[in-house]
Structure formats: structure tokens, C-alpha cells
């Protein structure tokens, strides 16, 4: 295994950047409309629990990646099949985030530029970062991720004069069902996507802090998500918010006196960059482990090229992107994010308790 090590703070910031990812432009849990904050609270609690499961799997299998764990717990053949499916999942996830980035930039910032150029150029920088190693991505996140909450703070404070503090009322006007559906969506996007970190957790130098790091990043991400929701609904109102495509961007346009639109682009560049880098790194590492190739960097170029093509191919237009993310993604990703990890946790706990039982009997 690669001997690269990243500190707990770098892992915390990587997780935070990953969780922000495209949520910086796509407000999650919008299915619940006015009650999205409630859905975020419930989904945040569920997501934190899910991330705790991932951390527990990593701690029960120290120094092992997801592929190693799958092979060990499920056998070589079945483990390899699941590992290939996970590789596909990471590549698909990277492509979806690349597409989110491309759609946003081509709709808002560079409407005349072809999307493939925007996505391709971004991918070139990301390949360079990934090939530099996980330590470099960790250090980059240390440098850049703190900018995200700072930008959120700047935009939120700038809008303090244009708030309607009753815009989120009435509470539970449409009943509990939309809230529960949105909470489930919020678990799968973004929390469940951190399953990719099972390929990175072996690189953390202080394993004893892993659970703390994971719980803290999930809690802070939920908190900032809720702050963002309240900011957006106080400024836009629920009707406009339901009709807007890129909600945080629209909010940033309403600041009286000056234009901070580019700050939203910066947030997406950082959050999206971290998320895509982690996904491509996880895919390259998984594929190299399946094929028995020592250095995963040999495959990053080909995987990134495939991701760029897939990101253009995957949706016909922005409406299909939003529809798919809302209707299909939560159900498609459930098996990767919840079912298989829970199975791995049970198998890890079972195999851990087995030798001690045998020892007690002897």
C-alpha cells in the first residue's frame, strides 16, 4: 500500500470539502420545500450515523481499503465483483459532480463556452493534483476548504438587510411524508457518498481520532447546510426558491451594492474539486487493487478521461440532471452507501468476535 499519510485535520477538511461538494450550488433536501431545515436535521442525524458506520468499518479493519475488506469478508470472487461495482460507482459519482460543475459554469459564468472545454480544463488540474498524491490533496484541502465557510459567512452577512424571517412558515404545512423523503435524499446526497473515503481512511495517521473527525465534519456540514437553507429562504422566499435552478447563486445576486457571484464559483471549484479528486483517487486505487497494479497513478489519466466523456454523456440537459438526482439517485445509491457497508460492518464485527470466543473456549 502507498505509504502516504494524512493528518486528522486534513482528513476533517477533506471530508468537509467533500460534503460541501456540489451542495454549494445544488441546495439539498428541496423536496421538503419550507420544511427542508427539518429534513436536513433528520437527514443530518442519519448521515452522521452512516458516516460513523464507515469509520467503524475502517477501525475494525485497520490499514485495509474498501477493496481489501470486500475481498476478505466476501471471498475473492464475490469481493472482486463488488469492488468492480464500487469502482464504477466512484467513476459515476465523479462524472455527476463534473457535470454539475459544467452545467453551473456554462449556465452562469461562461454561457458561450462549450461544456466539454470547461469540464476538460477542470479535469486537467484535478489529474495533476491526484497524480501528486493523497498528501498533496490533503494539504490543498487544508489551504482551500476553510474558504468555503468564510464565503458562506460573507454572503450571509451581506444579505442581513434583505431578510424576511417568517418565510419558512408554516411548519409541516405539507405533512411529514415530504420531509422524510427529503431527509432520505439528504442522507444519500452528500453523506452516503463519503463511502469513497473507505479507500482513504487507511492513510490517516492517528486512527483513534477517526470517529471524532467523521462526526465533527458531518455535524458542521449539517449545521452549515441549515444556515444556507435559512439564508436562502429568508432572502428568496419559498416560491422563488422552489422555482430557482441554482439557489445559492441566485441569493448571492441579491446583495445590494456589490456583486459576489464569483465567490459561489470559487466555493464550487473548491468543494467540487475535492469531491471529484477523492472519487477519481478512490476509483483508480480500487481498480489498481483489483488488477494487482502497484501504483494507482498509472490509471488516473484514463479514468479521468472516461469521467469527462461520461459527464457529457450522462444527461441530455440540466432538467434531466435535476430530475435524476432527485428521483433516481437516492434509490440507486442505497445499496452502495447503506446495504453493503452495513453488511461489511456486521461481517467485521462477527469476524472480530469469533477469535476471542475460540480463545475463551480453549
Amino acid at each position, binding site marked *: 500500500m502507498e505509504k502516504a499519510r494524512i493528518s486528522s485535520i486534513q482528513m476533517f477538511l477533506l471530508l468537509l470539502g467533500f460534503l460541501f461538494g456540489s451542495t454549494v450550488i445544488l441546495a439539498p433536501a428541496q423536496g421538503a420545500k419550507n420544511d427542508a431545515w427539518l429534513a436536513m436535521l433528520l437527514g443530518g442525524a442519519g448521515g452522521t450515523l452512516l458516516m460513523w458506520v464507515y469509520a467503524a468499518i475502517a477501525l475494525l479493519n485497520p490499514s485495509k481499503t474498501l477493496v481489501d475488506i470486500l475481498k476478505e469478508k466476501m471471498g475473492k470472487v464475490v469481493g472482486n465483483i463488488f469492488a468492480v461495482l464500487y469502482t464504477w460507482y466512484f467513476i*459515476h459519482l465523479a462524472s455527476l459532480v463534473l457535470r454539475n460543475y459544467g452545467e453551473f459554469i456554462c449556465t452562469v459564468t461562461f454561457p458561450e463556452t462549450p461544456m466539454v472545454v470547461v469540464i*476538460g480544463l477542470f479535469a486537467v488540474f484535478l489529474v495533476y493534483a491526484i497524480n501528486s498524491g493523497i498528501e498533496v490533496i490533503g494539504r490543498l484541502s487544508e489551504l482551500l476548504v476553510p474558504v468555503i465557510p468564510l464565503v458562506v459567512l460573507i454572503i450571509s452577512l451581506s444579505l442581513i438587510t434583505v431578510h424576511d424571517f417568517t418565510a419558512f412558515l408554516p411548519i409541516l404545512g405539507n405533512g411529514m411524508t415530504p420531509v422524510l423523503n427529503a431527509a432520505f435524499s439528504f442522507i444519500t446526497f452528500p453523506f452516503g457518498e463519503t463511502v469513497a473515503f473507505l479507500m482513504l481512511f487507511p492513510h490517516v495517521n492517528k486512527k483513534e481520532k477517526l470517529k471524532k473527525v467523521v462526526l465533527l465534519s458531518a455535524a458542521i456540514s449539517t449545521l452549515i447546510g441549515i444556515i444556507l437553507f435559512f439564508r436562502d429562504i429568508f432572502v428568496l422566499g419559498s416560491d422563488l426558491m422552489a422555482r430557482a435552478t441554482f439557489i445559492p447563486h441566485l441569493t448571492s445576486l441579491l446583495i445590494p451594492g456589490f456583486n459576489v457571484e464569483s465567490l459561489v464559483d470559487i466555493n464550487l471549484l473548491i468543494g467540487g474539486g475535492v469531491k471529484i479528486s477523492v472519487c477519481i483517487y478512490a476509483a483508480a486505487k480500487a*481498480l489498481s487493487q483489483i*488488477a*494487482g*497494479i502497484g501504483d494507482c497513478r*498509472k*490509471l488516473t*489519466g*484514463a*479514468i479521468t*478521461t*472516461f469521467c*469527462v*466523456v*461520461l459527464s*457529457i*454523456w*450522462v*444527461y*441530455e440537459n440540466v432538467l*434531466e440532471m435535476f430530475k*435524476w438526482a432527485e*428521483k*433516481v439517485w437516492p*434509490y*440507486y445509491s442505497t445499496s452502495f452507501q447503506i446495504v453493503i457497508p452495513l453488511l461489511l460492518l456486521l461481517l467485521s464485527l462477527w469476524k472480530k468476535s469469533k477469535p476471542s470466543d475460540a480463545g475463551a473456549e480453549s
Partner: protein
Amino acid sequence: MIIVLAVFAILISYDLQRFIRKKERARVFAIYAFLMAASLTVGLLLAAGRRPLSPSQWIEAILRMIGVLK
């Protein structure tokens, strides 16, 4: 279409000379060739305006078939 071919030619020639110099194993070449061939095929089809059914549509169809989506 020519642009797509040119971009792939540059990418493949850059990577292949690196692989040959380092005498990489056959499986590296095989995985690389598979990924690049898939990307090139889809890239050319997209450039020609003949977009094949995307993986998202396959996934949606499968989920509908097994009754997860209605």
C-alpha cells in the same frame, strides 16, 4: 470529430510512451486500452450527434424493471 480524435491521439501518445519506457505490465495496457477505447467511442458518437443511451437511463430502466421506481 477531428478535435476529439486529436485530443485522444495526444493523450494516448503521451501515456503510451510513458508506459513503454517504464515497461509496464500487460494488464496496465489492457485496462488503459479498455477505458480509452470506451471514452473514444462514446466521444466520437457524441461528436457525431448520435448520443447512445446513457448509463443513467440504463440505471433508471433497471430500477423501474425491478419495481424500485414507479
